[in-house]
């Protein structure tokens, strides 16, 4: 009986050793929740302070489709809600305790959240996402208002429908459709007063904009009255603003017309006429600063001047209460409140004298001026700001910068900073750190004998100390463990790796043109650089990184170097291709183009766009940028790289996606011509069936070393792996046939090596695939099969394919060094098996290790916000159909089972919500057994995995003390027994 219990105990131990230990969380991994860069172009999505009880939160909707609440004190995420990708946030509407959102085209779905906790209270579709109108800008035609007396919600959705929803259940109380449903008239806003619900619409005809106002009964939704008001406003979105005056509960509409403001006070029978306010004649348009509840808005004059306007509570009069002086650079306005709810208006501008951002705050009867502690070299320019005024009349400002940073200022000092552009990271590379130099050699060759003697004698005085330390370390010291944190003690700021190489730098580039160096041991940003605008500095523009290559690593004997190929689009839409070359340890510029060290500038390699760029690997790595005229441009461009390129030129080929005459995507293979100015010419193109189009291409997931050329079976015969290094995975769509295709192409000759087709799911092809060595894994949704219904087994499928040379055992064609033009190059056998996969995924990647000996696991980013690993054992396409024979068992094959078990112990991400992952990058550590996994997209998550367990380090529970004690005891025993044995031997000799 006790044997059995021991057995179970052992089992429990062996299972738990596979899983992530709770003690490892935060030690071997880190997780950075991000929210994305705030969408500041609409007041309904821009960051704003929200008061909850006696604490404040910053609420924002972001470009990554996240609604988030940040802590004012430290900028941490209090809560967030990640919306589906196809369901863009139209706006958020906070009230006392709840916050409502409209999302999806035309405001398809309404949700309410608890504003303090982010708990989803209500979710209700107003129309299906497919019926949603796509308007420009997207938030047009969707509006939301809370009922003044209950929790009910009034919405305008799809620009034509007003709905009243029960605030607790979400049930529809009534629905009213605009009579102009088919016309171009659109509803833009809903206002709720106790007497009536007003829907404000607009219809443009020629230069005139007609405001349409509908008064609806709040209880039944019946139309009480409607009225058209003709105005001369150019733009219905920015030109007209409407609000409910809180004191009188009156709905007021205001706009500027022919230089002077007009107001219209709404009553349920719409009897009132617009009032023209005399005295102001230079008003161009009105700007809503979020203070409309207080009747304050900003009036922009024709001459560029700005005034704060106050509408009287009766709505009949408008008075300017403050005139701003005219500034031209970096002018932004914002509204905010103090603790008591009094309105303030602030303005930022760029002071050329101080090279700083100046903040003017108007309100509470005074004007204050501050210098904002904003670092423009680091963070670009201020795109948006919001603020609140604390009790000591000092504003706290939250800035969204052009590089995607969200920062809080006090206002002169930086309080906290969130680099939200990291949520848009699309390129990432691991860069190894140099080893720590333990002893620095001080000897120089000119040193004489006596000098050396003296130096060594002086050094020798440290010997006893060293010996003591050595013995102490030997007896008690602990060794680095594979599950220990990789953060070594900092030594005067120099970067060096830990014992196992877990500490590396992750260089990431974001679509906001900012590059970060992230410490892989804790996720901290070590350095960050904004890609400079170069010649577009005066006209403005954007720099978007396209490709990133590591061209030098520590094994080259220098600091690692990274090259970024970026596209610069200036304000006149002129495109240029720029190369940035930086030191991966410090972010310092290596091109020499930067005139000041604080600005990172690149070299304009092309004054036009580029088609593609490539890295020519070899001893000397060369970046090849392909111009639109198919000419290669090298970086670095010198005699040595020219020679490297010329030597390789004849062997090189590359596929490009091009458009055919009838507008279809196709793939054309190219080779470089000869001569001094070689131009690439097409060599092949992939012929696809009618209507089939290329969707995308992806290269092999890893280019790690290949440890074994074949798979040895139990009877010691070999299946030789098909290791063609020229394979390119291509995805196709054929909408007419409703199929998604996957091709493995030999990109030198264009031969299709492997091809498969699956049924598209409701017209969408979302195949995820990854190829490593000879192993292809792809994932898709199966809603129907080729022969019709799948009968209740709809779901995600994972297919695993392995390609082997020849047509049987022991057949080899030497695929890895074979030419594409050899007949045998497509002689392959594919072993494939299909499985039911438990999750929808966003991406997948195989693990990579230093020598490629360790078996490869696949890491999946699932749509339920987890990073999970699935072992090779389950994904082996040669799993047996019946009970495995002894030989198959020897190989480690298990019986085929259609379902891949969803083992929660294989979840790498603990209980973090790792949301919105778009890519997983894996990299080897110094330990062969361990691979680093970095997932990014929205959040960032890094961990280590050991697919075959850490076989190359001493186990955690290795008892060093026991070993030392045993050796010590044995040594003592020898010392003790040696004289005894000697005496005995001597005595024995007498008796011989």
């Amino acid at each position: 009986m006790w044997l059995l219990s021991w057995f179970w105990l052992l089992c429990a131990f062996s299972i738990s050793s596979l899983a992530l230990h709770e003690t490892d969380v935060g030690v071997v991994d880190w997780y950075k929740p991000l929210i994305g860069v705030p969408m500041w172009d609409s007041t309904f999505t821009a960051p704003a302070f929200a008061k909850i009880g006696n604490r404040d939160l910053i609420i924002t909707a972001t470009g990554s489709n996240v609604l988030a609440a940040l802590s004012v004190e430290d900028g941490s995420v209090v809560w967030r809600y990640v919306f589906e990708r196809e369901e863009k946030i139209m706006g958020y509407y906070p009230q006392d305790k709840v916050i409502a959102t409209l999302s999806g085209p035309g405001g398809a779905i309404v949700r309410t959240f608890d504003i303090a906790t982010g708990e989803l209270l209500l979710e209700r579709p107003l129309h299906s996402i497919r019926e949603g109108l796509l308007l420009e800008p997207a938030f047009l035609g969707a509006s939301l208002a809370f009922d003044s007396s209950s929790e009910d919600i009034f919405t305008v959705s799809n620009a034509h429908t007003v709905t009243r929803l029960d605030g607790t259940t979400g049930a529809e109380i009534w629905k009213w459709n605009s009579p102009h449903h088919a016309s171009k008239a659109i509803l833009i806003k809903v206002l709720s007063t106790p007497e009536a619900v007003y829907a404000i619409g607009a219809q443009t005809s020629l230069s005139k904009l007609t405001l349409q106002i509908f008064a609806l009964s709040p209880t039944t939704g019946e139309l009480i009255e409607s009225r058209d008001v003709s105005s001369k406003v150019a733009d219905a979105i920015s030109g007209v603003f409407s609000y409910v005056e809180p004191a009188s509960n009156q709905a007021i509409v205001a706009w500027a017309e022919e230089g002077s403001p007009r107001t219209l006070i709404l009553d349920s029978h719409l009897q009132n006429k617009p009032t023209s306010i005399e005295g102001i004649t230079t008003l161009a348009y009105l700007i809503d600063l979020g203070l409309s509840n207080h009747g304050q808005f900003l009036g922009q004059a024709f001459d560029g001047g700005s005034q704060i306007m106050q509408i009287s509570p009766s709505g009949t009069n408008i008075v300017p209460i403050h005139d701003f002086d005219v500034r031209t650079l970096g002018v932004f306005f914002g509204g905010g409140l103090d603790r008591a709810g009094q309105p303030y208006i602030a303005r930022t501008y760029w002071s050329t004298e101080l090279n700083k951002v100046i903040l003017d705050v108007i309100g509470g009867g005074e004007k204050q001026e501050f210098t904002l502690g904003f670092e423009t070299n680091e963070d670009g320019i201020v795109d948006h700001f919001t603020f609140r005024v604390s009790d000591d009349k000092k504003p706290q400002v939250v800035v969204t910068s052009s590089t995607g940073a969200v920062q809080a200022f006090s206002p002169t000092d930086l309080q906290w900073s969130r680099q939200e552009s990291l949520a848009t990271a699309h390129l990432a590379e691991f860069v190894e750190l140099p080893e720590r130099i333990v002893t620095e050699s001080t000897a120089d060759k000119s040193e004489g004998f006596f000098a050396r003697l003296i130096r060594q004698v002086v050094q020798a005085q440290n010997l006893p100390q060293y010996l003591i330390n050595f013995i102490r370390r030997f007896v008690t010291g602990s060794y680095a463990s594979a599950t220990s944190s990789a953060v070594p003690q900092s030594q005067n700021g120099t970067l060096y790796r830990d014992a196992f190489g877990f500490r590396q730098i992750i260089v990431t580039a974001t679509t906001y043109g900012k590059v970060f160096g992230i410490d892989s041991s804790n996720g901290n940003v070590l350095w960050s650089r904004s890609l400079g605008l170069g010649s577009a500095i005066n006209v403005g523009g954007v720099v978007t990184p396209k490709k990133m290559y590591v061209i030098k690593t520590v094994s080259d004997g220098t600091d690692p170097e990274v090259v970024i190929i970026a596209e610069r689009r200036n304000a006149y839409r002129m495109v240029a291709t720029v190369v940035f070359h930086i030191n991966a340890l410090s972010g310092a510029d290596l091109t020499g183009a930067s005139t000041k060290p604080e600005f990172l500038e690149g070299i304009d390699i092309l004054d036009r766009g580029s088609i593609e760029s490539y890295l020519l690997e070899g001893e000397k790595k060369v970046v090849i940028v392909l111009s639109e005229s198919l000419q290669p441009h090298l970086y670095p461009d010198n005699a040595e790289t020219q020679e490297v390129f010329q030597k390789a030129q004849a062997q090189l080929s590359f596929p490009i996606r091009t458009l055919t005459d009838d507008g279809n995507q196709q793939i054309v293979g190219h080779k470089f011509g000869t001569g001094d100015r070689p131009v690439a010419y097409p060599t092949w193109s992939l012929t696809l069936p009618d209507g089939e189009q290329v969707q995308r291409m992806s290269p092999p997931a890893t280019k790690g070393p290949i440890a074994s050329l074949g798979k040895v079976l139990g009877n010691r015969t070999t299946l030789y792996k098909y290791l063609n290094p020229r394979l390119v995975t291509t995805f196709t769509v054929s909408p007419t046939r409703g199929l998604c295709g996957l091709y493995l192409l030999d990109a030198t000759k264009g031969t299709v090596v492997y091809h498969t087709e699956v049924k598209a799911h409701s017209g969408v092809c979302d195949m995820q695939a990854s190829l490593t060595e000879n192993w292809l894994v792809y994932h898709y949704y199966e809603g129907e099969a080729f022969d019709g219904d799948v009968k209740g087994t709809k779901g995600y499928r994972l297919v695993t394919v392995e390609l082997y040379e020849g047509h049987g055992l022991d057949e080899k064609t030497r695929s890895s060094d074979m030419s594409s033009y050899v007949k045998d190059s497509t002689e392959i056998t594919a072993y494939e098996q299909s499985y039911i996969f438990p999750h929808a995924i966003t991406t997948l990647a195989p693990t990579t290790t230093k020598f490629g000996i360790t078996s490869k696991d696949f890491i999946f980013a699932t749509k339920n916000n987890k990073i999970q690993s699935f072992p090779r054992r389950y994904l082996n396409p040669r799993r047996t159909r019946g009970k495995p024979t002894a030989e198959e068992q020897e190989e480690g094959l298990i019986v085929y089972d259609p379902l891949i078990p969803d083992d929660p112990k294989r979840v790498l991400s603990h209980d973090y919500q790792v949301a919105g992952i778009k890519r997983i990058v894996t990299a080897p550590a110094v330990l062969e057994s361990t691979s680093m996994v970095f997932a990014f997209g929205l959040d960032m998550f890094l961990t280590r995995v050991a697919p075959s367990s850490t076989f190359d380090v001493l186990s955690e529970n290795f008892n060093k003390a026991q070993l030392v004690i045993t050796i010590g005891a044995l040594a003592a025993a020898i010392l003790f027994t040696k004289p005894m044995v000697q005496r005995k031997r001597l005595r024995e000799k007498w008796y011989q």
Partner: protein
Amino acid sequence: MSPILEYSSLEPSNQTIVRSVKLPPPPGFTGTKASSSKAPVKKTAPTKQSYDAIKAQRAWDFATSPAKQLPMQAFMLYMSGSGVQIFSMGIVFMLLMTPFKNVFSMNDAFAQFAPSTSKNSKSISTLPLQKLVYIACNLLTLGVGLWKCRSMGLLPTGTGDWLAFETRGPPPEVVLHY
């Protein structure tokens, strides 16, 4: 005068006393004379040739002795199983080592059976036939050992055993992956 037992008078050498007493020999006693009178007639002293024949016979026995042990060894192998353990490995090592040891010390082992005519008893040319058979029998033992190795999967006979030594050159064409 007390009588004295003269045992020495019984000795054949003291012919005089025996003859004088004329005592019959005790039952079962045969004088050496009687026996010695027979032998020279039928069996002379062994000649060199007969010794050589016997030696040759013994050499043949020795030469085939490894083969005779085979059934026992096969049984031991059967008992030791096909797993790679200390016991089966010990037996396999013995099977693989003894043939070589035997063959290398063959000349010494056969020296005792060398015919008297041979000049050098340790020469390879003495008893050539027996030695050949001896080698063959040892090879038989070795074969059994190898067969055992093979069944344990210790012989590098499959392509898989040589896979690690295969090399591949750089590919003749290079695709620029993006």
